[in-house]
């Protein structure tokens, strides 16, 4: 890499790529301040009204509330089940390892239409009424695999010496787990829960196949898309985006601070 092109070409390219990635986010954010009527297609002037009175638009807040409820319940169940599997995969030898890995991978590789239609067929043949409950049952499936992947990495990077030290100091297995293993896994579990909530909150396809009459935020946007999505939807989308980015940045800066303070001590 002798030519100096490389020196500026890469940073310039990265800046252009990030602009490309951020354009629709910026667009959604800007149009959340649009003084629009029913639809939100042309710029009609700046207003804060849509932010201060989001719930005035019929159905938006109800759909948002349902999505939060579905996200929270799916995340709790998927995180608990997934963390247990992740620990077993890293720490234990057992038969059927190959099939276990495959069974955990396949939900992530299955197109959402396929899983959505499959679940809907199963609920139909069992005579289960579709609604928030069936949506949650579907979301847990794909959240679970992502939790396993995220927590597994954390378990693998955990030094077993720490747990052995606990045992040597006469801690019983339960104490070792709750006093040593679990606190050390917590950042990974938190990251998995965050990812899980984001996936559930944004899911449209599996939800749409199994929702019955219940609305979620993505379903609200989809139904409104035919005639134009109101600015209130942009407000919710932008608010969720800001909250998620702040959470991610906070965990990263916190992690970096910890790393630096550890380096200083040595």
């Amino acid at each position, binding site marked *: 890499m002798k030519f100096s092109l490389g020196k500026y070409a*890469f940073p310039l390219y*990265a800046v252009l*790529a990030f602009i*490309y*990635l*951020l*354009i*629709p*986010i910026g667009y959604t954010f800007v149009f959340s301040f649009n003084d629009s009527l029913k639809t939100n297609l042309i710029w009609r002037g700046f207003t804060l009204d849509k932010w201060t009175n989001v719930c005035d638009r019929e159905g938006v807040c109800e759909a948002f509330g349902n999505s939060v409820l579905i996200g929270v319940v799916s995340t709790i169940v998927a995180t608990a*089940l*997934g963390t*247990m599997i992740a620990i*077993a995969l890293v*720490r*234990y030898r057992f038969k059927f390892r190959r099939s*276990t*890995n495959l069974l955990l*991978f396949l939900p*992530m*590789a*299955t*197109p*959402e*239409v*396929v899983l959505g*239609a499959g*679940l809907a*067929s*199963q609920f139909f043949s069992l005579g289960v009424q579709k609604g928030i409950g069936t949506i949650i049952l579907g979301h*847990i*499936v794909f959240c*679970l*695999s992502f939790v396993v*992947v*995220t927590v*597994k*990495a*954390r378990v*693998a*990077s*955990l*030094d*077993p010496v720490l747990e052995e030290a606990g045992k040597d100091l006469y801690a019983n297995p339960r104490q070792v787990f709750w006093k040593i293993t679990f606190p050390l896994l917590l*950042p990974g579990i938190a*990251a998995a829960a965050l990812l899980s909530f*984001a996936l559930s909150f944004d899911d*449209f*396809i599996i939800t*749409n196949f199994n929702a019955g009459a219940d609305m979620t*935020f*993505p379903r609200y*946007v*989809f139904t409104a*898309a035919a005639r134009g*999505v109101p600015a209130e939807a942009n407000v919710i*989308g932008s608010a*969720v*985006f800001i909250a998620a980015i702040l959470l991610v*940045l906070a965990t*990263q800066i916190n992690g970096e601070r910890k790393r630096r303070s550890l380096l200083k001590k040595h």
Partner: protein
Amino acid sequence: MAFAAFSSSKPKGFSKPTKSGKVAIALLAPGLAYLGVFFLTPLIALIMVSLQAPDPDGFIGDYVAAFEINNYFVVISDYFPQMMRSFLYALAATILALVISYPLAYFIGVKARPYPLLQKLMLTLVIAPFFISFLLRTLAWKQIFSNESWVVTTLQQLGLLESDQYVVGTPFMVIFGLTYNFIPFMTLPLYTSLERLDTRYLEAGSDLYASPSRVFRKVTIPLSMPGIISGTLLTFIPIAGDYINASGDFLGSSSTAMIGNVIESNYLISNDYPAASALSVLLMGAILILVAGYVKKSGTEDLL
């Protein structure tokens, strides 16, 4: 290593699995049982429904258990164009995503190594689109490229588009949307594998008088192959099954319908469950072949 790209901490692998016993079964059983009931049996249900025949005594939308293999031949002949389109759109969008992502992943993973905080910040920007609603970000592109937008009028004035030509509803727009929406799935695995790239190999190459492009082709690309393979798999699969981008209310039109659109409309609108299920089984089969190829090459440990 496919999806491991999504985890924040890198696996260091302190210990090989050593312990054995009933604890493992107790830890695995609830989750795997869940997947058995809500993932495997739905897939079996799909296969059963795909073989059903219309109920002779029932209404439209009523079906009875049967062994109608013919359903498969009917959907293949009815929806062959949509199947081909899914494959071609997914291929085009995957290649585009690879071409756009590679330099970016290289910059973050190799060039920016001296600045870990900057690396983390850029990774956050890469996944930023995931935090805005999928549907809202797709609609944003639709509005940016809508018929009266300045983007389209500028393109028309520059002569790149005829005055009666538009962008929304064309295959170009659908492929553009698919590329955008799934780019993080390509960038993250590429980054994970480039981040581990030992740059001394690159120096060795140029010390031996290889030109920069030769070093790139003979050293960088082969060393980042695991990332290229998992990124390709992770982008291609969801794109092939997507139906939001290609649907008429979003970036596509009736002439851009993909297999996902056909499954959705058969299932939810015309209630032709056997046809929708047969198409789903075919799509799933094609993807299983892809995954099997990957597993044969890299084993199952690296899937997660």
